[in-house]
């Protein structure tokens, strides 16, 4: 039995067709003036704007600023988060000291910390890295610690019985054992990073996609704003492709 629900090729086709159909509907609505093009523009105009910004380098300038901030902040936050998460998962004393702080401060929206971060790290790039790192670190602490706790006890028994030292328990047992959960954390954290950076750039930056979106709206260059939104979506899509690829490479044993 082969229905459209189970055929992967058909599903892939649907995945591509759905957004194209929506774009087409948008274009028709704009051409027929069913929507107010001053606010909602049209796909064709947005794409024209996109190509122009790509040609004159404006888009690359803002995109590079955003990507650099996200990558640097993400690497810092992920490294610190995984290290703390492993320690919380493996060492009860660390868990007792850090877990309550993490639980209590996790629900604070990280964008709300931006004024404080700017006071501490200044208006420059450091504050952008910091706000991303802070957003990422929580998700990775939580996911890594949960990943360590989910490791089959037998693997910890093996580590103890074969006298693995603390470092080896971290690197050879806890880290690879928690890797599936860490990668899930990274996927979520990457999405959150993009949300946070666009918001942060709208509030406190002179470059970046968030800055582009917000200033374009303020000067009523609606097409540029939509280009910014579109590029943000591309970032989200591209990062998920990269992280899915990394997942397949790093944890081949989790594939069915």
């Amino acid at each position, binding site marked *: 039995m082969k229905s459209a629900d189970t055929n992967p090729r058909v599903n892939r086709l649907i995945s591509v067709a759905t957004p194209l159909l929506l774009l087409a509907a948008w274009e028709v609505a704009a051409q027929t003036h069913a929507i107010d093009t001053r606010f909602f523009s049209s796909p064709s105009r947005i794409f024209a704007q996109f190509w122009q910004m790509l040609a004159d380098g404006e888009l690359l300038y803002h995109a590079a600023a955003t990507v650099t901030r996200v990558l640097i902040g993400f690497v810092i936050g992920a490294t610190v988060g995984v290290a703390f998460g492993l320690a919380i998962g493996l060492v009860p004393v660390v868990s007792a000291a850090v877990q309550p702080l993490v639980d209590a401060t996790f629900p604070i929206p990280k964008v709300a910390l931006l004024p404080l971060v700017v006071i501490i790290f200044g208006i420059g790039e450091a504050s952008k890295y910091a706000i991303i790192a802070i957003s990422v670190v929580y998700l990775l602490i939580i996911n890594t610690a949960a990943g360590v706790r989910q490791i089959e006890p037998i*693997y910890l028994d093996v580590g*103890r019985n074969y006298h693995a030292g603390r470092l080896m328990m971290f690197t*050879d047992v806890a880290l*690879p054992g928690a890797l599936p959960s860490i990668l899930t954390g990274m996927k979520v954290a990457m999405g959150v990073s993009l949300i946070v950076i666009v918001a942060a750039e709208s509030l406190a930056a002179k470059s970046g996609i968030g800055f582009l979106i917000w200033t374009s709206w303020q000067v009523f260059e609606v097409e540029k704003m939509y280009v910014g939104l579109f590029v943000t979506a591309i970032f989200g899509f591209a990062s998920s492709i990269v992280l899915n690829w990394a997942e397949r490479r790093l944890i081949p044993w989790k594939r069915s």
Partner: protein
Amino acid sequence: MSVAEPDVALKVRIRNLRRSFVLHGRTFDALDGVNLDIAAGEFLAVVGPSGCGKTTMLRIVADLDTQTGGTIEVMRAAGSSRPVNSMVFQQESIFPWMTVRDNAAFGLKARGIGKRQRYAMVQPILERAGLAGFESALPHQLSGGMKQRVALARAFANDPEILLMDEPFAALDEQTKLILQGELLRIWETSGKTVIYVTHSIDEAISLADRVLVMSARPGRIKDLIDIAGIFSRPRDVATVKSNPRYGELFAHIWRELRNENIAGAVEQAA
């Protein structure tokens, strides 16, 4: 666990070993005064009804659990740097994120032996365990039987004073089990290792062991120690053992003892 000077040919001396658990405010004795001497190079099988404390005893010897009372001594040569014990676990215990080679060399790595040297050390053991050609495979690419071969190789490669095995073949199908029992004997016979082998299978105990220790239901005590080495000599072939008429007698003898224990255990649980 204390470590003493070598005795004549004594390898393990267990004295008055006790372990109790507190559950819902009630104290249960899992082990109640186990006394046992195991000779160097001996293959000892431990059988008993479920919950008789045989795995608990093994975990205490492995230092994965702590006794409530009593002592375990493992004799070792002066200046020996060997690990005291290495365990082969019942469940799947090899790390899914390591290749066969890295799994087998895990204990050696924990002892600080460099990569090249430990790989060289595990290679002959991998070959003896029938894993040649699979060194770089990941466990998810292997069958259950192959995975347990890796677990055996890991324990033998660690070259411990004593080997502890907790029903290592219990999850395997019958044919694979027969093959691996034979392979285990073959590897063990050349190694001269002292083995404590916990199993629920009477057949496996008779086929593999020099002596079979029958444990009583909770509290776990030694009920009987049956000499097998005097009946089936080494090197031993698993299939030949099973076709020997003495095998049937031994099986019936152990089963009678276990059946009574199982009934006693059932009565205790019902009470």
